[in-house]
C-alpha cells in the first residue's frame, strides 16, 4: 500500500465567547495513493473542519489544532511546515474544491488568469506557457469552447461551468490529493451527475487521491472506495463501500442509510427518521456521542466511550454493541426490508 496521508489523533477547537467548541475530537485515518475516501455525516459533525485542517486552513485566532495532533503527508509533518513550504504544499501537493463555486472563485479576475496565477506561482512558468497550460486544464474538465472561457469572468458562467473551472484550478498543479468539500451540493441533479463522472474520469486518468466530503449517500455509493461516518467530531464507523452499505454495524450508520428513500422502494410509507439533534459540542463528552438518539442505548453507552472494534481489516466500528457481552441486535432497516419482500 502506498500511503500518502496519515492523520493521528486530530483534534480541532474553536474559541468563542461561549467557550471552547471541540469540533473534531480525535480523528485517525490514512489515505492511499489513487483512492477515494468519503466522509459522511450530518451538518455540524466536523467533516469540513477535518479536511480543512489537512490544508492548515484552520489557523489561530479562530481555530486551534490541538497539541498531540499529527498530520503526515508522505512522511512529512504538515503541522510543522514553515510558511514557504506550506505555500508550496497547498496547491501543488494538496488542493481543494469548495462547495459553492459562486463564492470561491475571484469575481474580479478572469477564469484564465486565476489558473495562470497558480501555474506561475507554483510551477514558475512563463506567462504564455501558463496560458497554454490553463487552456489544457479547461479542456481536461470538458469545458466547451475553452479558449473563450479563459477570458470570461466567473459571473458569466453557470454553476456547473464554474465548478468545472474550480476543478481545473485545483488540478492545475497536479496535486496528489484533491479535497472535494461537498462539490455538488449547490448543483442540479443532471449537472451533479456530469461533475461526478468528470471527477471519476480524472481520478482514473491522473491517479489523484480524492477526499470527498458529502452528506449524500447516493453519491458515495458509486464513487468512493472507503467511507468514514462522522458524528460529533468523531469517526463512528469506517469501512469499504460494500461493508458500510451491506454490513453496517453502527446504529447511526443504519439511521443514515434508512433515511434515504430508495428508488425501488414502494412509495408513501414512512421514512425512518432520527429523533433529536446532535450533542452540543461545547459540553464535554465522555460517553458515546450518539447515546441520546440511539434506539439500542444501554447503560454503559451513557457512561463510557466505546473503543473502536475491528470487524475486518478495513471495517471498524465504535459501538458498545460490538462488545462480546452486548446483546445481539438486528439493524432496524433489515427488519423493514423483510417486511416489504
Amino acid at each position, binding site marked *: 500500500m502506498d500511503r500518502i496521508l496519515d492523520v493521528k489523533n486530530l483534534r480541532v477547537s474553536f474559541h468563542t465567547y461561549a467557550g471552547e467548541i471541540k469540533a473534531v475530537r480525535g480523528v485517525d485515518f490514512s489515505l492511499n495513493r489513487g483512492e477515494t475516501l468519503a466522509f459522511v455525516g*450530518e*451538518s455540524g459533525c466536523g467533516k469540513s473542519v477535518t479536511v480543512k485542517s489537512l490544508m492548515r486552513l484552520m489557523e489561530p485566532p479562530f481555530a486551534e489544532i490541538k497539541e498531540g495532533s499529527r498530520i503526515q503527508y508522505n512522511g512529512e509533518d504538515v503541522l510543522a511546515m514553515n510558511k514557504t513550504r506550506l505555500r508550496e504544499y497547498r496547491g501543488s501537493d494538496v488542493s481543494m474544491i469548495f462547495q459553492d463555486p459562486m463564492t470561491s472563485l475571484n469575481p474580479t479576475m478572469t477564469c484564465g488568469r486565476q489558473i495562470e496565477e497558480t501555474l506561475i506561482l507554483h510551477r514558475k512558468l512563463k506567462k504564455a506557457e501558463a496560458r497554454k497550460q490553463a487552456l489544457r486544464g479547461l479542456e481536461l474538465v470538458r469545458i*466547451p469552447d475553452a479558449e473563450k472561457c479563459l477570458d470570461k469572468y466567473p459571473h458569466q458562467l*453557470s454553476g*456547473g*461551468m464554474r465548478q468545472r473551472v474550480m476543478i481545473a484550478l485545483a488540478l492545475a498543479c497536479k496535486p496528489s490529493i484533491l479535497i472535494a468539500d461537498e462539490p455538488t451540493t449547490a448543483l*442540479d*441533479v*443532471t*449537472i*451533479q*451527475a*456530469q461533475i*461526478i*463522472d468528470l471527477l*471519476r474520469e480524472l481520478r482514473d486518468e491522473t491517479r489523484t487521491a480524492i477526499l470527498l466530503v458529502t*452528506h*449524500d*449517500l*447516493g*453519491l*458515495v*455509493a*458509486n*464513487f468512493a472506495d472507503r467511507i468514514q461516518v462522522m458524528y460529533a467530531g468523531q469517526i463512528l464507523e469506517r469501512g469499504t*463501500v*460494500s461493508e458500510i*452499505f*451491506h454490513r453496517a454495524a453502527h446504529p447511526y450508520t443504519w*439511521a*443514515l*442509510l434508512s*433515511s*434515504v*428513500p*430508495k*428508488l425501488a*422502494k414502494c*412509495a*408513501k410509507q*414512512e*421514512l*425512518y*427518521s*432520527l*429523533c433529536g*439533534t446532535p450533542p452540543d459540542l461545547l459540553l464535554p463528552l465522555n460517553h458515546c456521542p450518539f447515546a441520546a438518539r440511539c434506539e439500542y442505548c444501554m447503560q454503559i453507552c451513557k457512561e463510557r466511550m466505546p473503543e473502536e472494534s475491528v470487524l475486518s481489516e478495513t471495517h471498524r466500528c465504535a459501538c458498545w454493541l460490538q462488545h462480546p457481552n452486548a446483546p445481539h441486535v438486528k439493524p432496524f432497516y433489515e427488519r423493514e426490508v423483510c417486511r416489504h419482500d
Partner: protein
Amino acid sequence: MTEPLMEVEHLCKYFPAGKKRLLKAVDDVSFSIYPGETLGLVGESGCGKTTCSRTLLRLYEPTSGSVRFKGREIVRQSSKELLAFKKDAQMIFQDPYSSLDPRMTIAEIVAEGMQVHMPASRQTIQKRVTELLAKVGLTEDYANRFAHELSGGQRQRVGIARALAVDPEFIVCDEPISALDVSIQAQIINLLLHLQREKGLTYLFISHDLSMVRHISDRVGIMYLGKLVELGNCEEIFEKPLHPYTKALIAAIPEADPDAGSQCRFRLEGEVPSPVNPPSGCRFRTRCAYADERCARELPQLQQIKPGRSVACHYWKTLQSDPDCKE
C-alpha cells in the same frame, strides 16, 4: 373520476427581461390537481417550477391563462374575493431562514393568518397556536421564541404550522426539504405525509430531489424551460419514462446502492439554455440525442396518450421501442 380541486389551463407568466425581450418563465402550462393527492413537480433549477406554483396562488399575476379552484376562476378576481381562496390554499417556502419574520415570535407568526381569516378571541387563538405547534412536533416553550433561536428543521416546522393555521385544503410545498439535513428531511417528509392522512390535504410538491418526489407523490409533472414535458402517474413515470428529458433526469439520480452500477447509458450533455432566448421548436432539442429538423421546426404539444398520461415529444412512440434508451 372526481372533480379536480384545481384546474390550470394555458397558464403563462412572462417577465420583462430588458430590451423588449421577455423571459417566458412559465409558458402555456395546463394540468389539474385532484383532492387528496400529491402532485410532484420536478425539473432543473430555472425551469419555472417555483414561478408556476407562485402564479397558481396569485403571488405573481399571471400573464394569461386560467386557474380554477373548486370550479371558481381565480385569475381575474379582486383581492377581496381572493381572501377565501387564500385561506384554502397555503404555501410552505423553500428557505426556512428567510421566510420567517425575524422580529416576530413563533406564536405571532403562526397566529397572524388566523387573525386575518378566522378572527377569534385571543385565548382561542393562543390555544390553537399551542395545538398547532404540538401537531408539528414543537413544544409550548417555542411559542415565545424568535426564529433565529431555532434550527433549520424546527423553522421548517414553524412554516408548516403557519400554513396549517387557517385550515387549508391545498398546500404548495416549494422545495420544503432542500435546505435541510438528510435525517431532518426524513422527519419533515414524514410530518407532511402524516398531516395529509389526517386532514386529507392536497399537496403540490416541488422539488429537484427525484427520489423524494417519487416517495411522496401520486402523480408527477416534469418541467423543462417553462414547459410541462411529461405528466402522469408516479410509478409509471419512474418505471417507464417516455420523454427523453425524463429518462435523463431519472438516470442522473445517484442511487444509494453500490451494486447499482456506476455508469449509466443516458447521460445528459450540456446545460439548460437561457429562457430569454429559448431554442426554436422543442425546447429540449439542444440537449436531446434524438432531435432532428422536425424538432427544430415544430413545438411538440403536450398530448394525452392514455388516460392520465401525457407527454410532449414528437417521437415518444419510436423512442419507446428503441432498445438504446430503455431504462
